[in-house]
């Protein structure tokens, strides 16, 4: 069977753990060596991923599960090690590898406090295994295991390397997700027994979905809904997200936004809808309404934020709302858009969090009010921020557009066949409201960009004061006259640059434009945003076949 290359998925998923194994034997003082091994592991993993892409059969075969492996794992509970890749999982699988590698490269000179690069890198590698595994698992129990594997590393990433409120944020993240996945597990088991307790294999469950009565299915779907909706996160389960994002280190935010949130939406597409089509039809209006509430709520939340990272976090709630709206239509069009939106959001929001991290790194604050005119000081970073804001608000020609616009459009004609149909008036109303959401998105993103980037450089950006508002130029005096020091009384430049006394060397020296590791980490994402924006068919072609296949159980509904 080697001709199928079906070993490649297993290697791609577990290779990061090999890196972990090697790193365990290297003392943590060898920081560079640890980082290098981690980056090489991630790079080799990505190379395996690219080989997977190269061997993947496109065209009409893309709807088939490729590199399919099906071997015994836990016979006693009829769970098997089944993995495979189709058009829907492939982009996400590769995206997880790309993001992990880029985040690691970015970490080369950006290990957050309190250091310990070894542990940080090991956690990221474990995360990578969990994420990639979730996207290839074709057995519910295997899926569940991978789905949970990501929890602890992310918990520690936020809790150890995060900001001030890190312990609160990490626990909140953990408890929310764990609550969701506990109910999800119960739902999985119920699904298993309702389909005759034969197999956890998704293929089997798709084929036997009609064995479950609609009433029972609605309840099982409820369990899965909570599990996946917490992860997405959908309104009203979203409250962990702003905290987790704001407190997480840059790397954690990027991985969280780019990949972890997608585990939830992916779960809907891969598991909840095809295994329980009769319940999906009942739940679709609820999902649609909650999705649109999320869009508007997220946008309004953004308008109220004063912290850049928190603003981006809320924008995630809104964007995932578009994805969920696309999914809730249960149409081929909508779900194609949703998967596209997932990848686009991964690239764009991941990039935005990178930028936020780099700004914080330079100015030690993300208070929008204190910023202004960064285009004057660090123009390259400023323009990249501008481009990402445009991509995020859905500017045609950039990746965001192809996730958002078709998702809205799909709500015009939600799922219907000869027997079952979703309420057209409801979804058309949702469509209109979602469209208003895009206007709001343009509003908060442009407003944010305007406040941060345009105009004259603010005292902070110009390097006249530090993040706490202390006048840097008065450093030496500040040390001497701490008591009678008042920032407002001193004119800018009244005191010549002072060096040393208060530990503030020339403030202008530390603010440099985009650095070399940042360029390496960001360029692939920026290229991705442009390419996927300019040539959307590149991905739609891969997705379409699989989406059609996943929706087949819904199409086959007879309304009984």
């Amino acid at each position, binding site marked *: 069977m080697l001709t199928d290359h079906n070993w490649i998925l297993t290697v791609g998923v577990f290779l990061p753990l090999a890196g972990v194994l090697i790193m365990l034997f290297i003392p943590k003082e060898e920081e560079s060596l640890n980082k290098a091994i981690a980056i090489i592991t991630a790079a080799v993993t990505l190379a395996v991923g690219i080989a997977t892409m190269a061997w993947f059969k496109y065209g009409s075969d893309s709807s088939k599960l490729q590199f399919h492996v099906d071997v015994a794992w836990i016979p006693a509970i009829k769970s098997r090690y089944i993995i495979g890749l189709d058009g829907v999982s492939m982009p996400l699988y590769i995206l997880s590898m790309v993001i992990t590698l880029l985040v690691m490269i970015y970490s080369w000179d950006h290990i957050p406090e309190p250091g310990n690069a070894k542990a940080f890198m090991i956690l990221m590698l474990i995360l990578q295994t969990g994420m990639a595994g979730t996207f290839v698992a074709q057995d519910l129990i295997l899926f569940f*295991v991978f789905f949970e594997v990501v929890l602890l590393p992310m918990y520690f990433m936020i*809790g150890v390397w995060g900001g001030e409120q890190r312990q609160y944020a*990490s626990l909140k993240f953990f408890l929310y997700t764990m609550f969701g996945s506990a109910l999800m597990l119960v739902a999985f088991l119920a699904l298993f027994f309702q389909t005759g307790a034969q197999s956890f294999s998704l293929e089997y469950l798709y084929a036997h979905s009609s064995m479950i009565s609609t009433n029972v299915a609605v309840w099982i779907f409820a369990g899965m809904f909570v599990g996946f909706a917490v992860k997405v996160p959908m309104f009203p389960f979203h409250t962990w997200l702003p905290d987790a994002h704001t407190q997480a280190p840059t790397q954690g935010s990027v991985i969280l936004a780019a990949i972890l949130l997608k585990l939830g939406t992916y779960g809907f597409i891969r598991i909840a809808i095809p295994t329980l089509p009769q319940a999906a039809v009942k739940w679709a209006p609820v999902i649609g309404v909650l999705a649109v509430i999320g869009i508007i709520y997220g946008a309004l939340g953004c308008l109220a934020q004063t912290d850049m990272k928190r603003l981006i976090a809320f924008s995630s709630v809104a964007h995932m709302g578009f994805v969920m709206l696309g999914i809730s239509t249960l149409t081929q069009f909508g779900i194609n858009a949703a998967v596209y939106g997932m990848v686009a959001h991964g690239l764009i929001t991941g990039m935005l969090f990178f930028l936020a991290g780099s700004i914080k790194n330079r100015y030690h604050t993300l208070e929008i009010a204190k910023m202004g005119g960064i285009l004057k000081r660090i123009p390259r970073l400023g323009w990249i921020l501008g481009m990402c804001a445009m991509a995020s608000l859905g500017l045609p020609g950039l990746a965001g557009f192809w996730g958002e616009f078709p998702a809205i459009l799909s709500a015009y004609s939600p799922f219907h066949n000869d027997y079952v149909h979703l309420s057209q008036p409801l979804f058309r109303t949702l469509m209109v409201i979602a469209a208003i959401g895009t206007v709001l998105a343009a509003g908060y993103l442009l407003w944010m960009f305007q406040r941060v980037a345009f105009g004259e450089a603010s005292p902070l950006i110009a390097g006249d004061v530090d993040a706490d508002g202390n006048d840097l130029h008065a450093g030496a005096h500040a040390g001497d006259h701490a008591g009678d020091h008042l920032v407002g009384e001193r004119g800018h430049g009244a005191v010549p640059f002072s060096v040393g006394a208060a530990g503030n060397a020339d403030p202008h020296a530390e603010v440099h434009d985009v650095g070399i590791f940042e360029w390496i980490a960001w360029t692939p994402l920026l290229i991705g945003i442009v390419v996927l924006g300019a040539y959307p068919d590149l991905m739609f072609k891969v997705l379409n076949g699989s989406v059609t296949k996943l929706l087949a159980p819904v199409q086959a509904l007879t309304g009984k």
Partner: protein
Amino acid sequence: MLSTLLASDVVAPFSSPKIDYHALAPELVLAGVIVAVLLADLFLEESKKWVLSTIAGFGLLAAFIPIVTLAVSGHRARSMFGGAYVVDTYSLLVKGIFLLAGYVVVLLSQNYLEEGDYYQGEYYFLLLSSILGMVMMGSSRDLVTIFVSLEFLSIPAYMLAAWRKRDLKSNEAGTKYYLLGVFASAVMLYGMSLLYGDTGTTILKGIGAKLQNGSMSPVAVLGIVFVIIGFAFKVSAVPFHNWAPDTYQGAPTPITAFLSVASKAAGFVALINLIYVAFPHGGDVFQPMIGVMAASTMTLGNVMALRQTNIVRMLAYSSISQGGFILMPLAVAGGKSSGNALTAIVTYLAVYAATNLGLFAVIIAVSRKTRSGEVSSWGGLFSYAPLLGVLATAFLASLAGIPPLGGWVAKFGAFRAVITSGTNWGYALAIVGAVNSVIAFGYYGSLMREIWMKPVPDGDTAPIRTPSSLNAALMICGGATLALGVVPGIILRFSDIIKL
């Protein structure tokens, strides 16, 4: 009077029962080791007492050998003494768990006893006796045998709990454990006498044939209830759990580990024997009772654990709550999910033993340095003892049921068993369990937070030196916890062959 009785035909001439020495080999080996420890203690000088722990450890491993030979011998069940004592695959499996858990406890005890200057010979003698009682419990299929095994395993444990005799807390632990334990025994014995009175036999199988749903006499119902209450004390199920936190906190830490794992497991084994063999048709009586106990045990244990600041006390409540999860499958035993429930409990016991013993090994290792049992004393553990920190995290994650560590298999099995029953009652129990597994992370997570995210309390970051016996215990438990989670087949494969 007596002479006429003896002379009459009522008393049949005594003939020795046929004894299958192979089947009894584990017990015989253990008994031999107990005697060896006692004798060696008499002749060893004070400085050579460490030999005792070696004898005890190797003795337990030696007792494991006949278990393996019995398992491969092909006989499905060897029944002795008129069905009172049965050696089958199920009993071999639980005996194996008891012996290995006992071995790890010996490893944990070694340095603890030497450094604390406690009596060693008597300690190992009592520990081994208690383990022998547990091993016997695995095979007991008769009310009297069960009672004898139970006392055999409990009485040494009462003394061991009070082993730190210079410490009032330990005295309290022993006394409390003894008084409540004896009370529970009395209640249970009363229940057994009712059962005997109603059915006219003490052999569980015979009782099982007589007790049928719907046609049970009130006396039999009371008997079942009392017997189950007696064991509810043993497994510290709510509302009979009050002794556990004080006893766990006061007892020497290795004994706490022993009580929370092996002794509790023995209680569950007894419950399984009774429910599966004697009350399989008494579901109407025991199912609601155990269901309510399971739900309240896991909930109350969790809620109380959330407020603890002492690690051992927290783990005492955690162990109560885990006991609720182990009870959960028993609440649906007797129906169509019997097989799943049995697998679930045995799996849970094995996983729980590996995980909890491992966690206690970490506690013992850390307290060698910090000399404290407070949660806050674990602050920054990862920064100065990364291996211990990671192991502790793994054990905690396993207890919380997070894949890929063993705990998820155990929890999964428990959920699976109650959901197979297909009743609303089963689903409700599953949801209570699901919610509880989230609450539990509240305190498991708080320990993880100390390990990873808090500063070292006194700034003392000297590494922790662990003696080799403790290292061995950590490696055994860590390896088992991970292996059970990644390839659960190693324990679940027995699910087809363990039947009662």
